[in-house]
């Protein structure tokens, strides 16, 4: 099941702009290796789930996968062949707003080689360029 907030203040969000780079959430914190976004963008809840499945099929029973992003933003759309006006469309999907540098997923309890293979599978699902990162020196 795709991720979604339990309670929200407003059903519909404005689109917004992605400015700057990630100053938080840009380090590997929970696991040993991570997948870092190199560009900004919206990542759909379904995409996050697809990535999770791709990674967990590989690490099943060995490592622990951490998802570091959450889809807080609702994205609306109007149906096809609708005339202009009549207000904002209905929520279509939920997305996570990602700035360049954000760590999207983390993996612990596996070797570096396994983590690289796992994240390579996961990276195919991502709509933005990503790279493999290690924990920063303390």
């Amino acid at each position, binding site marked *: 099941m795709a991720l979604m907030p339990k309670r929200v203040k407003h059903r519909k969000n404005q689109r917004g702009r992605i400015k700057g780079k990630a100053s938080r959430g840009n380090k590997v914190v929970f696991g040993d290796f991570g997948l870092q976004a190199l560009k900004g963008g919206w990542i759909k809840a379904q995409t996050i789930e697809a990535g999770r499945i791709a990674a967990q099929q590989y690490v099943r029973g060995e490592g622990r996968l951490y998802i570091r992003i959450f889809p807080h933003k609702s994205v609306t759309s109007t149906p096809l062949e609708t005339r202009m006006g009549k207000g904002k469309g209905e929520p279509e999907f939920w997305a996570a707003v990602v700035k360049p540098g954000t760590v999207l997923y983390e993996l612990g309890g596996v070797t570096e080689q396994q983590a690289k293979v796992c994240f390579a599978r996961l990276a195919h699902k991502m709509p933005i360029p990503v790279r493999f990162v290690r924990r920063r*020196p303390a």
Partner: protein
Amino acid sequence: MAEVLQVKVREEVGSRAAKRVRQAGQTPAVLYGHQLANVSLTVPTDQIEWAIRHGIRMVQLQGDIRDTALIREVQWDAFGSHVLHVDLTRVSASEKVRMVVPLELRGEAPGARQGGITEQLIHEIEVESAADQLPERIEININELGLGDAIKLGEVPMPEQVTMIADAEEVVVQCMSAVEVEEEEAEEAEVAEPEVIRRAAEEEDQEKD
């Protein structure tokens, strides 16, 4: 082992000057401690990055300033690939210092072969020791970690003359069965749309309508 850094005193301060320093292959740094005046420095980027990536803490400063210093804090760029700035503190070899050092697992847990997942919960701890005795890392042997077992901070063997500054009861590494982990991650029943948080006044209005 103390790494030698060729430092120069930096007259210009501020973000634009720091940017120029970085473009010239140097990294801005500051030296403080021992109740002496702070000094703005530049250090060669390749030397400081090498020292940081090899876990070296004690550095020998040469050039405009001759002193022994400890790498206290490192600022990274958003991608964690380049060092932006380094804080150095003056230390003498016998002086007691507190630093955060990484905890690294060594070996293979027998519990992992029985279907368990080895999970490291704490990756670094604060320790106190003489500056020249500061360990680069603390290693934890997990060769006897069975399924359902855990190692607490109090059970981690510390090098001589190194004191740990942390709660000894905290779990560092555990081996949980994969089923338990999956249950923990199990999601709740599917909800079509999230609940909208409304103010009490709005709710009353809706009820009247």
